[in-house]
């Protein structure tokens, strides 16, 4: 019978491949929670008095993140608001919204559902159905841009001082590899635990689960009996991110520390990349919506103009 490396109890629920550590349920939950709280402190993700907008999809990562941020809320260090974006993906998003609401209600956290249709006059399904010929952009490209726009807008409306997203180690490693493979060095310099723009209209984004693997996030919610939406977005499978994700998972089978080393290596070279590559292009305000933009129009307005 395997015994927990920390407390000596059985049964164990995880053997961490990277360290060989065996953990029972209680020690796994406690150590994971501690790790996230430690990272929040280490990277200075929050300050006392922050109002944190939780981007709550109802999936494992965001539900786990909210439950840990709630510890800080109960200690009166921060305030929380949970926001769920309804992109309008039929047969997928409805369950996520219900579960997101249940989790927020259980903790007594204010919860808001915001719709693509409200802000952009169309839901994602219709955007993809009506995509003009020759536009080969993947749904994830539109969705990513529009979600970021909505979160920044709602954060300002709600007086939130931080936007917290549930990106985990797998997501972050995928972003590093994807941007490197695509030669998108500008995006590469923006990857990190906390966004670094000084532009006042950008609400800083933080990623407290950046060093937690996706598998451990899944294990955490099941071990903690948290209700989560376990389903796949119908648009996700054939994306470039999906391809890169499968490639990294395959590599991880024989090289269990590969995601940690990718992240650590990247974090070391990032300051050099930033120094060498960051342009001092001033941020503008989008002429159409008033949100931050690098040109006359922000990306979300450039997209939504197509559907007018």
């Amino acid at each position: 019978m395997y015994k927990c490396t920390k407390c000596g109890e059985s049964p164990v629920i995880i053997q961490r491949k990277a360290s060989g550590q065996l953990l029972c349920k209680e020690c796994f939950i406690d150590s994971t929670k501690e790790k996230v709280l430690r990272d929040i402190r280490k990277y200075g993700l929050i300050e006392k008095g922050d109002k944190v907008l939780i981007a709550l999809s109802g999936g494992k990562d965001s539900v786990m993140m909210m439950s840990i941020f709630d510890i800080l809320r109960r200690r009166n260090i921060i305030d929380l608001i949970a926001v769920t974006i309804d992109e309008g993906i039929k047969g997928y998003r409805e369950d996520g919204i219900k579960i997101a609401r249940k989790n927020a209600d259980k903790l007594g956290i204010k919860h808001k559902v915001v719709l693509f249709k409200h802000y952009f006059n169309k839901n994602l399904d219709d955007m993809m159905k009506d995509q003009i010929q020759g536009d080969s952009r993947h749904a994830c490209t539109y969705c990513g841009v529009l979600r970021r726009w909505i979160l920044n807008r709602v954060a300002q409306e709600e007086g939130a001082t931080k936007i917290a997203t549930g990106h985990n180690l797998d997501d972050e490693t995928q972003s590093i590899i994807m941007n490197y493979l695509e030669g998108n060095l500008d995006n590469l310099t923006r990857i990190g635990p906390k966004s670094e723009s000084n532009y006042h209209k950008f609400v800083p984004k933080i990623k407290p689960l950046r060093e937690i693997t996706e598998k451990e996030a899944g294990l955490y919610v099941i071990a903690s009996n948290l209700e989560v939406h376990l389903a796949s977005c119908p648009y996700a499978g054939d994306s470039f991110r999906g391809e890169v994700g499968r490639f990294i998972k395959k590599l991880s089978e024989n090289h269990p520390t590969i995601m940690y080393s990718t992240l650590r290596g990247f974090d070391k070279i990032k300051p050099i990349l930033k120094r060498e590559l960051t342009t001092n292009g001033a941020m503008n305000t989008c002429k159409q919506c008033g949100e931050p933009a690098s040109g006359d129009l922000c990306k979300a307005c450039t997209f939504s103009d197509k559907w007018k």
Partner: protein
Amino acid sequence: MKITVTIGDQNEVKEISNSITIKDLLKILEIPSETVVVKKNEYIVINEEIVEEGDNIEIIKVIFGG
């Protein structure tokens, strides 16, 4: 020996050879172990856990490859 395997809403009784581990079972079922959490008789178990006659094995997919 016979075990019951539950994946989502589907229950299935499976005939398997003695003394296999969860890892072996996942391999037989062609499920990548990195994408699932497995419960044996309602308790979460690690890949090295031995599967025994009459066990109820629940396989919970937590990673969807998107």
